[in-house]
């Protein structure tokens, strides 16, 4: 078995790595690891005042600090029932534009473009593309300038507070922002043409689900009170957990998210896929000119999508400034009196949907949940790397895997410091295994394979269960030792689900049962080490998508052939359930 890895991803914000394990003909175990350590941000602000929380929680991430600021403010103001003045509202949108311009121009020109033009970094690229590098720097500077003017500082500004702003920027400063935005337009068009025109490498057809904020009023925008999926389904902000079931993986301090057990993507591409039709003006024209269905299944088009958003932001700035200057002066902060409440704030950070949920009890913060875009993208990053690596391996281009994974990860513009925050543990994807099993059986009649080591007490659970099922007369049940002989199982009927029965340590009470898609487990448990040698020769990637593990949490793995009482009890329950299903 050999491991290909990019130990330290360069040109991303933060400290992370991606690795893939190759065993014979299969790429397994793709891990997007976050080396950033745990910061426990969501616990840090418990017991603090809402104001302190608003100051501290954006410190999760520097590059998205304004998005975090707007998200925490929206959450707090929902929680405390504060309605800011129209002027504050628009100024916040304006500073959000600043962050998009800053972040997107940094990513597209400095972090991503060298990949497609073949340079190790932007400074080296400057020798040949001096104009682009220089003007892009000015564009980035302009984005920063907007954030500083409105929020007080480039990074972690403090002027935006619950109820509005400490102090409004001066009229002259806003007019200057408007003028400069207009001056940039020729270069912005150039940017769109450049990034939409790049001949991006093909990515294996791996469509995904896209999620972003629903800005409302059929408009394009960077925040809203609902989440919109590419299927057309929407969730109210308070129901965000229906989308993002965060869970812990062992190779990263960033949690992962799945929607109905499937990875999904957020970010520029998600917004353009879901909302691109709504773009107006020049951005709308450019969208019509460049957008095609192939954007949907290739994450490299995130870069093209970013360029459209840069254009959108530059078009929006003069409108915003005009609207702001039409408004009368007001007291910049609205007072509030609420002492209790809970609220959720949704915004689009440059790299995708960002969710802040804050609860206040007796004037102090009592609960915080922050779901960052990179945590949501982590599963899709691994999946895209997986399929791309598998394809290159199939084509005999093993030597390209490393670089390709590097570029794919970067395409998501992962913000690693952001994702390594952490939330409360909700045990591994919390699925009711019985319901899950029914769903699986609806796809086809499953075959079962018992695996394990009967000489290590509970580790023998899978083998014992398989034997009992056989004895109960259930068809298509095999033992680990029998699977190689049964070739039919692997060749025929690839739609037929396959369920491994095994003792799986997933950090639960002994005897607890779970049913997980195999690809998920392969990423992170000791099970993978056991299954891989057995399975990798026989199972192909498409089959793996339809393969599951029915895991039983062991109590003891000592030497011995006795199962512990809770595991025995679980076996009985499973047997009963399976017999019922088969009888139906």
């Amino acid at each position, binding site marked *: 078995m050999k491991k290909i890895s990019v130990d*330290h991803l*360069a*040109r*991303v*914000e*933060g*400290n992370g790595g991606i690795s893939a394990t190759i065993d014979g003909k299969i790429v397994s175990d793709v891990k997007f690891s976050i*080396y*950033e*350590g*745990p*910061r*426990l*941000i*969501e*616990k*840090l602000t418990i*017991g*603090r*005042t809402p104001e*302190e929380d608003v*100051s501290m929680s954006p*410190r999760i*991430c*520097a590059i998205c*600090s304004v998005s975090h600021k707007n998200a925490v403010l929206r959450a707090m103001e929902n929680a405390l029932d504060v309605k800011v003045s129209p002027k504050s509202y628009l100024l916040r949108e304006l500073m959000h534009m600043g962050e998009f311009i800053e972040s997107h121009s*940094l990513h597209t020109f400095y972090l991503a473009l*060298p990949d497609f033009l073949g340079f*190790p*970094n*932007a*400074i080296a690229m*400057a020798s040949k593309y001096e104009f682009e590098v220089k003007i892009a*720097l000015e564009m*980035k*500077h302009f984005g*920063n300038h907007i954030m500083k003017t409105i929020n*007080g500082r*480039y*990074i*972690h*500004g*403090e002027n935006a*507070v619950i109820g509005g702003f*400490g*102090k409004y920027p001066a009229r002259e400063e806003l007019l200057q922002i408007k003028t400069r935005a207009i001056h940039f337009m020729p270069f912005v068009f150039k940017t769109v043409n450049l990034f939409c025109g790049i001949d991006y490498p093909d990515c294996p057809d791996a469509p995904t689900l896209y999620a972003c904020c629903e800005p409302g009023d059929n408009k394009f925008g960077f925040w809203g009170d609902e989440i919109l999926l590419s299927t057309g389904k929407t969730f109210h902000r308070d129901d965000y957990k229906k989308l993002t079931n965060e869970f*812990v993986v*062992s*190779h990263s*301090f960033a949690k992962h998210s799945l929607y109905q057990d499937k990875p999904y993507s957020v970010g520029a591409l998600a917004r353009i896929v879901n909302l691109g039709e709504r773009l107006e003006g020049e951005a709308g024209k450019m969208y019509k000119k460049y957008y095609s269905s192939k954007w949907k299944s290739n994450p490299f088009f995130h870069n093209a999508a970013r360029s459209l958003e840069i254009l959108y932001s530059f078009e929006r700035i003069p409108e915003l400034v005009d609207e702001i200057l039409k408004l009368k002066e007001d007291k910049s902060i609205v007072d509030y009196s609420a002492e209790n409440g809970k609220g959720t704030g949704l915004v689009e950070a440059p790299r995708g949907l960002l969710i802040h949920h804050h609860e206040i009890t007796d004037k102090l913060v009592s609960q915080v949940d922050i779901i960052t875009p990179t945590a949501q993208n982590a599963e899709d990053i691994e999946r895209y790397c997986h399929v791309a690596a598998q394809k290159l391996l199939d084509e005999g281009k093993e030597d390209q895997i490393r670089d390709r994974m590097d570029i794919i990860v970067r395409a998501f513009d992962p*913000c690693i*410091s952001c994702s*390594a925050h*952490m*939330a*409360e*543990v909700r*045990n591994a994807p919390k699925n009711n295994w019985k319901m899950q099993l029914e769903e699986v059986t609806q796809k086809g009649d499953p075959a079962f394979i018992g695996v394990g080591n009967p000489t290590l007490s509970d580790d023998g659970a899978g083998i014992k269960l398989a034997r009992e099922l056989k004895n109960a007369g259930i068809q298509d049940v095999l033992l680990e030792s029998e699977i190689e002989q049964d070739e039919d199982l692997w060749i025929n009927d690839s739609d037929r689900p396959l369920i491994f029965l095994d003792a799986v340590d997933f*950090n639960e009470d002994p005897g607890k049962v779970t049913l997980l898609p195999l690809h998920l487990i392969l990423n*992170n448990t000791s099970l993978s080490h056991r299954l891989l040698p057995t399975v990798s020769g026989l199972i192909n990637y498409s089959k793996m998508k339809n393969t599951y593990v029915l895991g039983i949490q062991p109590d003891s793995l000592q030497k011995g052939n006795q199962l512990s009482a809770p595991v025995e009890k679980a076996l009985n329950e499973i047997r009963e359930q399976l017999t019922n299903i088969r009888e139906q």
Partner: protein
Amino acid sequence: MNKDKLKIGIYELTGCAGCALLITDCEMELIDIFNAADIQSFLMVKSDNIEGELDIALVEGSVTTENEIEELKDIRERAKVVVAFGLCASVGGIQARFGNKEWKENYQKIYGDMEMTHTKPVQSKPIDAYIDVDLYLPGCPVGKEQFLHFFTRVLKGAPPEKYPRPVCVTCKYNENDCLLNKGIPCLGPLTADGCGSICPNHNLPCTGCWGPAEGANPTSEYFLLKEKGFDIEAIKKRMSNYSGTKLAEFFEQFKKESK
């Protein structure tokens, strides 16, 4: 690369990456920075990094995993001068304010007992908990002017003399009304200068995000806020938000006294 140029490495441990990002925010100076020094390693902006002997290492972020301890020790061995770059490296950052026990409890609440396969987590600490640090540049994140001044001085082989002073100094340069006198819990007198007093400039109290100022008088500020009617716990919390491990002794002393 030019042999006369100082070899510099910029490293990120655990933090928000804001201090490294700040360097890229020196848009107009960036090309000059890269021309003036031989930037050997800077993961955020370049792929062709070389990990060898260094004249200066700027280390951002706090130490939160065993791998980071190893990485840090390796950097120390390779670099003549190590700079704690930003609040997290200097005092441990906001993530360093938990005591050991509190940290373990909260860690468990989030990750349960799952063994991490890639590294073992440790309680967040500033880098001087593990290695000798030559220079400190606090800030959350480090200020642009502050960084450029520091960087150009270091390039000349003459790092700025240590001259700690609180936010109040700049705050007065900026002619702000003292918020403490208005009964607003401003941490300016306790907080290292360098931010340009942006919060008071916007009529907002200093949050302390540059970390504790050397030579400050926390006892006086503590009693002053107490006298102004603030709750003791609230004062302690506010003072500890950004002080990492560095105000711990001060609070210990109060704990003893209150017993």
